[in-house]
């Protein structure tokens, strides 16, 4: 064997300094702080191991690795959840204003895949090509998914808005058959 040191190569250091904040922001939008920082560390550990294969531009690739790292942590958390630990899958950030709450609720009500597609564009501000690389599909497929996700989100947001506006107890009541028949 040859003994070496894992001192970061200068180019890797540049990669880290340039992209770590965005990777960290990406993770923080999807998990609590500790999970996000772990996922970011794991992302750059993978990047270090594969530093000769990191494509250019590196950001979509890094975010794709971060997404998988978060998914792995979430799966591990789900296993822990059975033991009593609870970890939510959707952003932890508390809404700054009460009016934001129903936006988060609508986001939570979406399926995970739709939520991810929306967040990649709305929060991470990635182009369709970049987001497609993170998501692991073609840009065309991503655009279709985004279109559908936006439509579903709008519908859910409208429903959330109505639910908020509806006074308590206004839920539709049951009607018996006798009331219906003439």
């Amino acid at each position, binding site marked *: *064997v040859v003994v070496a*040191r894992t001192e970061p190569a200068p180019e890797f250091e540049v990669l880290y300094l340039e992209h770590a*904040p965005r990777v*960290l*922001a990406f993770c923080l939008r999807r998990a609590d702080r500790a999970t996000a920082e772990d996922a970011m560390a794991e992302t750059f550990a993978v990047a270090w191991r594969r530093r000769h294969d990191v494509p250019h531009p590196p950001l979509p690739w890094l975010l794709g690795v971060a997404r998988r790292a978060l998914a792995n942590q979430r799966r591990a958390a789900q296993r822990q959840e059975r033991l009593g630990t609870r970890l939510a899958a959707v952003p*932890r950030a508390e809404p700054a204003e009460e009016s934001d709450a129903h936006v988060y609720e609508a986001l939570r009500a979406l399926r995970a895949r739709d939520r991810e597609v929306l967040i990649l564009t709305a929060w991470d501000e990635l182009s369709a090509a970049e987001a497609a690389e993170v998501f692991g599909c*073609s840009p065309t497929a991503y655009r279709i998914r985004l279109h*559908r996700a936006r439509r579903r989100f709008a519908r859910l947001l409208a429903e959330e808005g109505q639910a908020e506006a509806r006074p308590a107890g206004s839920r539709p009541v049951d009607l018996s*058959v006798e009331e219906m028949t003439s």
Partner: protein
Amino acid sequence: LTTSAAAFERLRQVNPVPAADDPALAARARELGRDWETVPVAIPAAPPSRHRLRLVLVFVVAAGVFLAVAPALGLRLPPIDFWSSEQAPPKVVRNFETLNVGAPPGMSVDVIPGETRKLTLTDLRGTRHTLYLAPTRHGGFCTLGARGGGCDKLGTIPLSVSFDFARSGAPRPDTPPGPAAALEGYVNSDYADSVEIAFADGKIVEVPVTWISEPIGAGFFVYQVPDDRRVAGRRVESVTARDSDGKVVAQQVIDRTAVRGAPVEALLDDKRPVFRTVTSAGTATYWLAPTRYEGRCAWLDVARRSGMFSRCLPNGYETSPGVGFGFVPLKDDVLIAGEFDPRFRFVDVVYNDGSVERAEPRAGLLLHHVTAEQFARGQVVTTLVGRRGDGSEIVRFPIPTQFDSAADPCQLPRPLGAHMAQCR
């Protein structure tokens, strides 16, 4: 209604980490970077010349193992890119072209025959099966395989299974169907991640799914039922699609003798009663609930049993033309229950004495109670008439009064009771 653009803009505004170039974020990233270990590690010396070959072999074996165990671990294999798949031969394309011909206005599946592709599925035995697929203009697709084909025009059907009862050819119409010999179907990749087959003896087999990329966005499977699984007590009972958390997305019952409760696809926490009435067998409730695939399920609970009168509807199909209803014979009375598409504003229940009761579907559902007193008076349902809001007739369903109809409790094989005399 909130527009898609407005909703999207609203979402942008609630970004919990709005600025990735925030100095605090950069400082924290730098701080985390300093935690990197710089301890000496041992790395292998230059490999011998045959090492590369060994690595390749290890990789091939590992890939084989992954392909074998991935479904068992709930891992979904990457989809096959639809657009780069082989074009279908002209004969098949012409076959798909016919799907658009002759459909009533608004009922065409709008398939795009020129984009038909040929794909190959592999079953558990390793047998390869050819499948032709073409997208529709509404985000769905049409299929053509060895066991025929079909369309999911909107691309929202969560699970679709077709099955052969015989080893070759179609089942004879004059003989009752035997046990399923082969299953073929698809699951929507938006909702489902795996497919499993349940047998009457409790055994469950997860079948390999070939995932196809957008615009298809679905996974396809074929399962040849082994001979020893075509005997009583060991037959295929149902096919179930599950999501990545293992939760049931949709289920198709193959053996109709299998006992069914509330549909497994329904999100029971969100169910709501649409109708409720008191019958001779206790309270009957007609429930409606959303599904994991953004569709809806309706079922009737009465006398500690559940029943459905049509399949759960996928997202977008709620307004498709369709009617499904049945009669639920109870101790001394009968319920008429079913689903009627939005065209039906009223349903007239016509009796043999000429009297008519007007029932009104709610949320596409109908429940009508024919009471014991009505039977005592000799009233028997003879016809259901579906009507529009202006009262005009859409369709008329004559109800046979002999044999297979349960519209009359007299038809029931039950002990002689007070009302039997009225029935004669």
